């Protein structure tokens, strides 16, 4: 059975004056119709680059993209810029992080939504405007008809993100990519936007890739989680599995660095170090430099040999230690122990 969307061995490299920057290094990702997948990882892990590659936004640029992106049986990587246009907006919609800068400052919100509709539908300007007003109503903007004539800067942050969602969904795409859509919003508005996205998703049965670094959002919204590190998938599993038994030391670190309400006196446990330099990738495991578990393994293994993504049922992990059963037991608390700190619970 082939998936609705299947990304295999995706590489995205940017030539710069200092050399080749490898933002994505063999990324794998698959998605079924109607499924919501959370794509998590810290800044620079290649989440956004992966989604932009799916959208074909690197065509006509210096970036080198290789691998396969199979969308309903079509390889998007081999499509020309012109053929790709038929997918953008129509079959794949995208919501960006900062709606103020992602919307054109000189056109009204209604014009921008109507434009998105008119690209793929042969209708009059007037009819497209009606669709836009209708769509603004569906994303919960009050007095949609008059608000459609407002400019993005006249909207509040939450309303702008709603308008952005309306723009992405106006052609009812089968796949929605949401690139950190709630990062720029305050918490109460975040919850509303998440509700809105999941509500609209159920209405239209579209698949969603939800890019975020907020594990709380993932737990609320997603069925499956894909954890990215250094431009690779290091772990993927159903959301329950990830939270109950995270397999990769990096995933454990992510969870330990997340504030928890129950953990009143606890301190956050940041992952020491920083992501690998993408200019000159290490030969071995990309996380080895920051990994506490690597010390438990035979000398040099993690630094010399890149681990493979091993499949254990519906749980995939890319880690030598996990492969050897060293991490089989334990949850987030093991992450604390493995850093040699006692959990302050």
């Amino acid at each position, binding site marked *: 059975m082939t998936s609705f969307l299947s990304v295999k061995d995706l590489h995205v490299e940017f030539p710069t004056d200092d050399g080749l920057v490898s933002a994505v290094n063999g990324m794998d990702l698959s998605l079924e119709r109607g499924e919501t997948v959370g794509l998590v990882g810290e800044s620079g892990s290649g989440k956004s680059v992966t989604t932009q590659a799916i959208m074909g*936004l690197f065509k006509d640029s210096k970036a080198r993209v290789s691998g396969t992106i199979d969308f309903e049986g079509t390889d998007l990587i081999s499509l020309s810029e012109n053929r790709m246009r038929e997918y*953008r907006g129509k079959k794949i919609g995208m919501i960006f992080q900062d709606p103020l800068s992602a919307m054109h400052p*000189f056109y009204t919100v209604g014009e921008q939504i109507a*434009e998105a509709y008119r*690209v793929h539908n042969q209708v009059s300007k007037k009819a497209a405007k009606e669709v836009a007003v209708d769509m603004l109503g569906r994303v919960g903007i009050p007095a949609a008809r008059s608000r459609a004539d407002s*400019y993005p800067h006249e909207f509040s942050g939450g309303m702008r993100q709603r308008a952005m969602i309306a723009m*992405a969904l106006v052609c009812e795409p089968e796949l929605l990519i949401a690139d950190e859509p709630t990062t720029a919003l305050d918490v109460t508005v975040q919850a509303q936007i998440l509700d809105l996205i999941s509500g609209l998703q159920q209405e239209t049965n579209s698949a969603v890739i939800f890019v975020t670094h907020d594990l709380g959002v993932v737990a609320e919204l997603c069925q499956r989680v894909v954890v990215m590190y250094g431009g690779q998938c290091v772990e993927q599993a159903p959301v329950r599995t990830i939270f109950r038994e995270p397999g990769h030391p990096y995933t454990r670190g992510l969870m330990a660095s997340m504030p928890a309400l129950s953990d009143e006196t606890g301190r956050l446990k940041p992952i020491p170090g920083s992501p690998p330099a993408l200019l000159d990738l290490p030969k071995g495991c990309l996380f080895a430099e920051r990994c506490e578990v690597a010390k438990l393994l035979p000398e040099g293994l993690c630094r010399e040999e890149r681990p493979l993504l091993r499949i254990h049922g519906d749980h995939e992990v890319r880690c030598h230690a996990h492969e050897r059963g060293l991490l089989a037991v334990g949850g987030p608390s093991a992450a604390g122990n493995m850093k040699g700190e006692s959990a302050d619970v």
Partner: protein
Amino acid sequence: MIAFLLRRLGAMLLLLIVVSFITFSLFHFGPADPASAACGQECTPDRVEQARIALGLDKPFFVQYLTYMSGFIMPRMIGAPGAESACAWPCLGKSFQTNENVTDMIANALPFTLSIAIGAVVLWTIAGVGLGLLAAMRKGKAADRIIVGGASVGVSLPIPVTGLVLLLVFVGILHVLPFTSNSINSPFGAAGPWAWVLNYLLPWLAIAILFSAQYIRVTRSNMIETFNEDFMRTARAKGLARRSIVFKHGVRAGITPVVTMLGMDIGGLLGGAVLTEQIFSVPGLGFTAVHAATSGDLPVTMAITMLAAFFIIVASVVVDLVYAAIDPRVRIN
């Protein structure tokens, strides 16, 4: 909107008064003596004194200034006591050198300056913005390098150099264009629009080479900046065609600094293209101003300075209005 315009109009008047006062003071306290310049070559101290009285330069500074300024409000009399002549409103005085009415002199010179300005502006805007946009779209490629290289050369070519080279090549060697004739100062004249174009083509080119080089640079850098904006990525993500992305989304957002520059440059050019008019001997405002300033002809210098200031101020108001039309964020309610 009306309140905004009235406020700008008030500021404009105030600014013009300040400009007039400064120009007048510079002349009055400067080293030039208009009276001896006006009285000609065979001059006795007596005749200089007579000239001084005839020109009204014997009166106190403020009286002179106020007398001059009164011409903007009503007609006034000019000349030596007993031999005065009328100067109709708006009176900008009479030339110290030729006794010609300055308002008439300006009216004669303005069509030449307008002729030069109109064609040059059209040429450099099309060439500058078009090539700048092309360079931005082909950033890093051969076309970009050629355009940017050309612009660096163009921006360092002063008008006297390009003007003389153009004259030498097209008039002196190739004989394909005429010397600039002073009998043609309008496309609606007897000679017709085509003769007008040919007559002013070389001055236009001389100005356009310099200005389009600057416009290429500004357009290119602004467009490159705009192409990297988030909303341009959104436009692509919607599935828009490249043409629509570049023109509808990119140019509208990236062109605003060029609009400002264009407004200011047009305003400046209308005050007289001094170098170009000198090189091509076109008796426009710039040409007239230079001769007036070197011969101490106060009324002519005053009038052209104030006219130039007026054009600049009007241009800045127009720029503000155009800006508001382009960018809704700066619109006033």
